[in-house]
């Protein structure tokens, strides 16, 4: 993927979520909301190394993964609004957005729940689609779940083409990493499964991209899984109106100063990309977001009785 495209994708995620947060605070969106803002370089850097046929699994904080993999902003926004035209016809909401056509196997709201599912998709890759790989996104919190151990071990012994991407934003909800694990780098755990592990700056999209490419190449060559830990930070709280007061102000300030989008923008300018070209991208993204909101607002609500559809595959 071209670096300009990566910039645009990161911006799409940021602007999409800024809009969603704005609408959410106006009570226009039901439920809860886990924003990805600040972590955009991870999803975009990793997905830049994938083809449309590759599979990904995602988490409760999944907007970024969807957009990076190529999901429609309109159908995402409609889903978040609970509309019939949304990806899941209003049945999933923010935490379950799925787009089978782009290999996005679903955001998953059980922490660590998608890890074994990614292993299964990896098995399908190995047996049915040898050119494909599966990426499994999860957080630092999920790395303390049994599924992390069971899933990575299984993928390792079977040499499955799965790339495990741990987005370490340092907090599992409100719990600091140091309170719940005695290591700093989650990638160290890879050694326990006999697979390569790497820690990268998750706010540097090119660093993430290069590490992901290495892992994807390994996987496509049949050399099995990799664990990549991306150190990153949430700009917002865990969910809803969480003000994230459990995070020291200096820490927040330090990470906010390392905004993945802003820093990448400087790099692009340094490279000689004209600023007006970036402005053009920025206004295109703004327009796309407005169109997505318009689409969602104008879309019909589901019928209450639609709640009984899609429970079963009916032959």
């Amino acid at each position, binding site marked *: 993927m071209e670096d300009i495209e990566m910039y645009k994708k990161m911006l799409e995620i940021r602007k999409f979520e800024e809009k969603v947060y704005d609408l959410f605070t106006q009570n226009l969106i039901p439920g809860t909301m886990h924003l990805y803002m600040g972590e955009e370089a991870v999803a975009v850097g990793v997905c830049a190394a994938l083809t449309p046929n590759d*599979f990904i*699994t995602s988490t409760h904080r999944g907007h970024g993964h969807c957009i990076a993999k190529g999901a429609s902003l309109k159908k995402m926004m409609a889903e978040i609004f609970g509309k019939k035209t*949304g*990806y*899941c*016809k*209003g*049945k*999933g909401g923010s935490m*379950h957005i*799925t*787009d*089978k056509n782009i290999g996005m*196997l*679903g955001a*998953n709201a*059980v922490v660590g*729940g998608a*890890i*074994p*599912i*990614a*292993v*299964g*998709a*990896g*098995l*399908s*890759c*190995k*047996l*049915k*689609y040898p050119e494909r790989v*599966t990426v499994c996104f999860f957080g630092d919190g999920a790395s303390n779940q*049994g*599924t992390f*151990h*069971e*899933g990575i*071990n*299984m993928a390792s*012994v*079977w040499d499955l083409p799965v790339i495990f991407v741990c987005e370490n934003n340092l907090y599992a909800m409100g719990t600091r990493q140091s309170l719940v694990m005695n290591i700093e780098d989650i990638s160290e755990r890879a050694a326990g499964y006999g697979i390569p592990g790497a820690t990268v700056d998750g706010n540097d999209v090119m660093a993430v991209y290069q590490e992901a490419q290495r892992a994807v190449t390994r996987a496509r060559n049949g050399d099995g899984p990799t664990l990549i830990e991306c150190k990153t930070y949430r700009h917002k709280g865990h969910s809803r109106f969480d003000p994230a007061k459990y995070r020291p102000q200096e820490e927040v300030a330090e990470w906010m100063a390392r905004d993945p989008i802003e820093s990448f923008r400087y790099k692009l300018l340094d490279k000689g990309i004209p600023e007006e070209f970036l402005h053009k991208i920025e206004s295109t993204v703004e327009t796309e977001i407005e169109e997505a909101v318009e689409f969602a607002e104008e879309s019909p609500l589901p019928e209450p009785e639609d709640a009984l*559809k*899609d*429970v*079963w*595959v009916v*032959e």
Partner: protein
Amino acid sequence: MREITVVEALNEALREEMRRDENVVLLGEDIGKYWQGAFKVTKGLEEEFGPERVRDTPISENAIAGCAVGAAMTGLRPVAEIMFGDLVALAMDQICNQAAKLRYMSGGQVSVPMVLRTPFGAGGSYASHHSQSLEAWFVHVPGLKVVQPSNAYDAKGLLKASIRDDNPVVFCEHKFVYGLKGTVPEEDYVVPLGKAHVAREGEDITIIATSLMVDRALKAAAALEEEGISCEVVDPRTVRPLDEEELCASARKTGKVLIVHEACDTGGISGEITKTLVRRVFYYLDAIKILAGKDAPIPFAPVMEKWVAPDEERIKKAVKEIVL
């Protein structure tokens, strides 16, 4: 026609489906050529289909189930084995939150055509971690089908139907049904899910029994015939979806119903069957009685273990209490 055991019938179903469809793969602990499955259901399958399609797994029940979910979503038709039914507790998130809900949550975009096979049931002095019957847990989760074969013919046909079904199916085998012999066609056939079977026709009372209790109910019915009591024995075969039509038709005909299952009384499938009968044929009924397992974990000592599950004598006694 030849007679084979339930284990052989299940093995044949797996073998035939694996020959028919290369997307069918097996996952489980010790199911491969070294052990051939704890109860030998997968005997000889790795030899025929190789280690890519018959996969010995680590002891990781949640990952076994979850791997089946992910594989099913992406084009395979996995059949996962959980070695003992009680151990499904280790895999509940993947079965109940993932397999059952992913189609729904994705707005119908994905399907999860997997089968989770597991042996339930008491009788071997395996004690409380290897003996319970937990089918009712799964019946309570929309999106899962739940199957309980009671004989060799059904075992083969139901397993083949389950593998071909596009929904996740929890396939509950009973360790003491495994050895029962019955006539089984060598050719391909399926027993459709959601269809009950009248295992014996009768006039005076309907015994609705599941799994191993069907065999016991049939033996009780044969003995009661000699005492002049004519029992109809109905086997739901699939407890979700439940064949309400067949159960209600039999209940209407005899007006008296005894429901028998091994799973413990409280929260068992008998409550669900009772609800169905009361809703639909209440005015035709003289009596409904439930004979279920005692409300205790399954004990070790044979004298206690035998006592907690319904047996032929207790079925006969319960029938007489209703009919006489």
